[in-house]
């Protein structure tokens, strides 16, 4: 009998208890059995206690209408959703490590990529950037708060229920399991199974599937759409009406410009999604035939979905571009090159984003003339994107570049965006798309953007503004390690997918031919690298929030010397002065 099987025979609780008890007795003996009265660690209070009019504790966070608090709530919510979605991703990669269907069942696998997509797009990226917008836009434009503080709070508080509806099967099953663990079996709680229809919810499958959870998913997405629209209206009105006298359209900062454009896109795109979702719910439950073959047809769903879905891509990526444009110059020691043209390219993307949706449907047999026009617009949208990229490069050119953590993420984001963008240009071409449609190439392409530049920009912002948000500094060495790990991880994880796609492997299948196994394993290895980086990030930020060195000078990044001590840092400076005035 080997050692492991001996161990499994003895309850671990018993082993652990005896070992700990023995150690505790020894420790007590060493200390002469005296309980110390003073904490040996000296205490770990935040050290930032200062007077405030806000209520304390949980009550503060549940009732707040302060844009800064709501921004923090958004960011915390988005982080939680991202970690959950990342769990899905790691489970997907576990299944794909081997060619057969041998870790999860095919149904579980389908549920995994569905919930991974929905979680990351609707509950991680959008809330993360909305949160940053909530916190910083009023400060950047010199407003006291958002225009509609209460709508702002409502917009946030719609998100948790929306998230729970979308992932509802999990919650009810958790409840079922909890009851089962004390001996009560309630079958109803187990009737909602995770949805397996893909994040695009394509008809007719999304109509035929009988799982009642799908209806909850649709309702949850609708609710999250309402929340997003409310937040966007708030951002637009705030930027239009609440600007300080000194803030004109000419000197409005780049982050506010991109968020303004993003919110404009939301205003036109999300109502279409909402309506389409309601039609789909009606098709499922009330026998309407909007998307049935004898009605509007499944293609109608694709048109409506992608009329929302492609602008959504830019809703996700424009704030990230805004963050890169904002942060990159600060560590290049130069002003953003071609500021005006970055704004124009943002607006151009905002308009063009509504003219490209059918490039998702080249292989559905649409009229060739229609296809060609969508190909032309899809290729054209590469131009404003390239304008941004070249302007970022020109900003770095001849600059005094400092490789602080936010800068590593910005430059890494540009790298991944170039790969993701160029692979996208190929996909926009109809003949290439017909070959590569629905293969891993597509997955690799958009992950270079969503995991690359979008998440990188969010990481960059989390580091760049960390001192401002918490009054403490993070561990810069860990930050740099996270930065380099992430860049390597993204290339190792998603470059093999491009190659697998060239090999012609369709996406969304739990098993695949053995020839792709080596590349899939490389990809899984890359995902693990990204995961380790994310854990380093989480540990760094949590521990730095508790114990990091306290910031006393607002010019954390030496921005004064290059004349870029911008509004939010000036605001932070006055905050620091008030804090020291009131510090207990």
């Amino acid at each position, binding site marked *: 009998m080997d050692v492991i099987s001996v161990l499994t025979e*003895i*309850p671990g609780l018993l082993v652990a208890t005896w070992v700990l008890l023995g150690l505790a007795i020894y420790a007590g003996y060493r200390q002469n059995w005296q309980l110390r009265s*003073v904490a040996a660690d000296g205490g*770990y209070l935040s050290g930032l206690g200062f007077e405030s009019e806000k209520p304390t504790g949980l009550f503060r966070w549940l009732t707040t209408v302060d844009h800064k608090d709501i921004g923090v709530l958004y960011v915390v919510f988005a982080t939680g959703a991202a970690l959950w979605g990342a769990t899905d991703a790691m489970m997907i990669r576990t299944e794909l490590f*081997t060619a057969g269907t041998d870790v999860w069942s095919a149904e579980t696998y389908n549920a995994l990529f569905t919930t991974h997509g929905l979680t990351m797009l609707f509950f991680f990226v959008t809330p993360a950037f909305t949160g940053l917008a909530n916190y910083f836009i009023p400060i950047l434009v010199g407003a006291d708060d958002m225009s509609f503080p209460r709508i702002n709070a409502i917009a946030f508080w719609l998100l948790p229920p929306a998230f729970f509806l979308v992932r509802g099967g999990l919650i009810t099953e958790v409840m079922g399991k909890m009851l089962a663990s004390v001996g009560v079996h309630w079958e109803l709680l187990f009737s909602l199974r995770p949805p397996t229809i893909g994040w695009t919810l394509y008809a007719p499958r999304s109509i035929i599937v009988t799982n009642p959870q799908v209806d909850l998913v649709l309702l949850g997405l609708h609710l999250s759409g309402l929340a997003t629209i409310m937040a966007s209206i708030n951002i637009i009105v705030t930027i239009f009406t609440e600007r300080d006298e000194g803030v004109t359209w000419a000197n409005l900062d780049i982050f506010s410009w991109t968020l303004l454009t993003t919110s404009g896109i939301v205003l036109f795109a999300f109502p279409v999604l909402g309506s389409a979702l309601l039609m789909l719910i009606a098709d499922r439950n009330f026998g309407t035939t909007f998307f049935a073959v004898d009605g509007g047809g499944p293609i109608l769903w694709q048109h409506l979905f992608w009329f929302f879905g492609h602008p959504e891509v830019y809703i996700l990526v424009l704030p990230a571009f805004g963050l890169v444009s904002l942060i990159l110059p600060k560590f290049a020691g130069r002003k953003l090159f071609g500021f005006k043209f970055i704004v124009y390219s943002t607006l151009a993307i905002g308009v063009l984003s509504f003219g490209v949706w059918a490039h998702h449907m080249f292989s559905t047999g649409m009229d060739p003339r229609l296809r060609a026009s969508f190909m032309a617009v899809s290729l054209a949208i590469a131009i404003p994107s390239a304008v941004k990229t070249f302007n970022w490069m020109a900003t770095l050119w001849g600059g005094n570049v400092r490789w602080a953590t936010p800068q590593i993420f910005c430059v890494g984001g540009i790298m991944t965006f170039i790969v993701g963008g160029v692979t996208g240009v190929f996909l926009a071409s109809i003949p290439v798309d017909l070959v590569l449609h629905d293969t891993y190439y597509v997955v690799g392409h958009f992950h270079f953007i969503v995991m690359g530049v979008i998440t990188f920009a969010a990481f960059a912002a989390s580091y760049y503004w960390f001192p401002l948000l918490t009054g403490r500094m993070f561990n810069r060495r860990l930050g740099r390690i996270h930065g380099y790990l992430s860049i390597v991880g993204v290339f190792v994880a998603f470059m093999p997918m491009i190659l697998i796609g060239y090999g012609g492997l369709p996406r969304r299948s739990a098993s695949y031919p053995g020839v792709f196994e080596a590349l899939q394993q490389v990809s899984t290895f890359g995902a693990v690298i990204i995961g380790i980086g994310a854990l380093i990030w989480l540990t760094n930020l949590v521990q730095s929030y508790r114990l990091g060195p306290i910031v006393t000078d607002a010019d954390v990044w030496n921005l004064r010397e290059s004349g870029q001590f911008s509004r939010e840092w000036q605001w932070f400076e006055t905050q620091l002065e008030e804090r020291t005035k009131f510090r207990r």
Partner: protein
Amino acid sequence: MNRPLSAVAGGVTGIAVMTLLLLFLEVETRSNLAIFEAVARFAGMPGNVTLGFLLFLLAGVFAWPLAFMALEQYIPGGPDPATRGMVLAVALWVVFVLTGRGDLSGGLLAIYVIFTLLAHLCYGFLLGAVYGRLTSESPVEADRYDPTDVSQ
């Protein structure tokens, strides 16, 4: 707050979050890991999930935190009690993985090992952090941040 009570408070926080994480993991993996059967095995009640789980809770709320209180000084990773809590939790995790893994293998075993480690780290962190926060009587100021120091 007095030290044993603080330790128990840390244990309650830690075990609540850990239980939630394990439940989510169990449901997320469509019960393939059989986490609570593993918990029952760990607690010496193979097959009896309810009683095993109860023992697991009691150990997490009382046994580990009180042992942590007594051992804190000797656990490496100080002076931050949260780091020390995580070290203790890793030790507990080793036993849990060895006794609880059942007949898992391959990809499932990898998922089981990684995610139970994360759950244990959360438990240890919360145990130590709450304990440290409740027992501290003389908060020390942390270092000041010096932007010119790039050695970090």
